[in-house]
């Protein structure tokens, strides 16, 4: 029938507008970014080469910025996992009513503006901030601690700001685990800790990987948090791209830095996906 034969092609037509928009304003700009990164001259004279990449990769200061950015993401993501896992676990153990309330509380920070949340942390971590006043009052330190404009501060705030991205996939993953498996483990004599490490944790691995990918990519690119909490002394890749592109107007170098940054992030995501696939192949390994 003509009607049946034409329906798949009509279905396809529905994706075309968004696909065209993405081709024009997502794929094309990224292609342009890559091609400009090969311009060797700042004035973009048309001379092509790997000069901008060489300039970045042979400078220890630039490499330190890349390393710091990737590491700050790792630290914040680990913090998110260590604190977020118990919260996700709790969400799956309470009544439906409580779970809805907890999820509402967890979602609220993602929806609230990141500028607002980061601003709150400045008030909390500042020299005369809430945390320092508490530390001084308790006599834990004679002088206020330097929390703002320090890497520790950046890691703490990134972990808080991005925590929901870790917790939500974890809740889904833990909820999918057959509760009989945990009961069986307990009935066979394993304690709560052993059951957790041998049953719950390995079976929730897909959620851990999904949460880690979302949290990590969000942490390394969190321009607002990095710049407000890190201040001008701590430089991370997003700020470096912004400075090179807008303050110094060095587009070819900024493009090369962007490509290196995107490639590093995608490589880490690919490694995490590969890890999850290899683990999924042998779930009892």
């Amino acid at each position, binding site marked *: 029938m003509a009607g049946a034969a034409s329906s798949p092609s009509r279905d396809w037509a529905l994706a075309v507008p968004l696909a065209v928009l993405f081709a024009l304003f997502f794929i094309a700009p990224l292609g342009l970014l890559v091609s400009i990164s090969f311009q060797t001259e700042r004035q973009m004279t048309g001379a092509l080469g790997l000069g901008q990449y060489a300039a970045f990769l042979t400078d220890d200061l630039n490499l330190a910025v890349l390393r710091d950015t990737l590491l700050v993401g790792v630290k914040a993501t680990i913090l998110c996992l260590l604190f977020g896992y118990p919260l996700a676990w709790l969400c799956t153990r309470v009544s439906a009513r409580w779970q809805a309330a907890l999820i509402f509380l967890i*979602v*609220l920070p993602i929806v609230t503006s*990141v500028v607002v*949340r980061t601003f*709150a942390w400045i008030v909390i971590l500042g020299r005369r901030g809430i945390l320092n006043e508490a530390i001084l009052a308790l006599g834990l330190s004679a002088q206020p601690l330097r929390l703002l404009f320090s890497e520790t501060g950046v890691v703490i705030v990134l972990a808080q700001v991005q925590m929901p991205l870790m917790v939500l996939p974890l809740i889904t993953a833990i909820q999918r685990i057959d509760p009989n498996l945990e009961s069986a483990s307990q009935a066979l004599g394993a*304690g709560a800790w052993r059951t957790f490490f041998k049953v719950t944790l390995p079976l929730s691995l897909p959620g851990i990987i999904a949460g880690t990918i979302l949290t990590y990519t969000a942490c390394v*690119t969190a321009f607002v948090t990095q710049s407000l909490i890190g201040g001008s002394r701590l430089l991370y890749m997003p700020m470096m791209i912004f400075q090179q592109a807008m303050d110094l107007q060095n587009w070819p170098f900024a493009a090369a830095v962007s490509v290196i*940054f*995107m490639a590093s992030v995608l490589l880490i995501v690919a490694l995490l996906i590969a890890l999850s696939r290899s683990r999924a192949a042998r779930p009892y390994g």
Partner: protein
Amino acid sequence: MRDWQTLSFNALFGLISLICIIVLAGPTLVILILSFTGEEALHFPPASYSFRWYLALLDANELQAALWISLKVAAISVTVCVVLGVAAALAIVRSTGSIARVLETVFMSPLILPALAFGFAALMLFSMLGMRPSILTLAIGHIIVCAPFVLRTTLASLMQLDPALIDASRSLGASGLHTFRTVTLPLISRGVASGAFIAFMASFDNVPVSLFLQDARTQVLPIYLWDIIQNQLDSRAASACGVIIIATVLLMVLMERVAGFSRFMK
């Protein structure tokens, strides 16, 4: 032995969860309380409370201008995201081919790629096309980074849709468009509404893309706030944040009632 294990496990996990809940909610509460300060300086806890900084927002012209730009950009972006995103989701969910998977991956990739690098790339493209920064360039950039949210929630609700309902409608003689309007759309409306809400908030909050696609005439609210927080720490920043927090909570409660949107965040 076993009871001790269960007890220590529950105690530790409960304690960490409690810390998490306090840390998740705390900062927002601190700003909300601080926004009602009666003092000049932002010091917590405030020595006195008043609405003075909220009243001061009434003559904050630059801030109001930035708010209007942000709302306009978000409204345009979300409208386009919903129309094109729902259409694309229908196409992707009906197709089993590999092209559909490729398209889905491309449409979702703005979630993973550094948004700032995309913002910079878009700036270069617009400048080569001779397009000056405007509400239009901002909206285009925001559509790309917000489309994944609408697509994801719409796909999630389409997956739960029983295909037999569509078949029944079609075999009873309804046209494709009529079926979409009277069967599909009502059944996926919660997913679409949730996606639209998340996309709206993502656009309203976006800094990394807007940084490159705005100019002095089209400064958006989060960048305006980011600027004053970084430079002079004006107390009006706290009351502006207070307004954002209150509006966000009210919208979220509304969306939870209407669309049960937090289900779509998982």
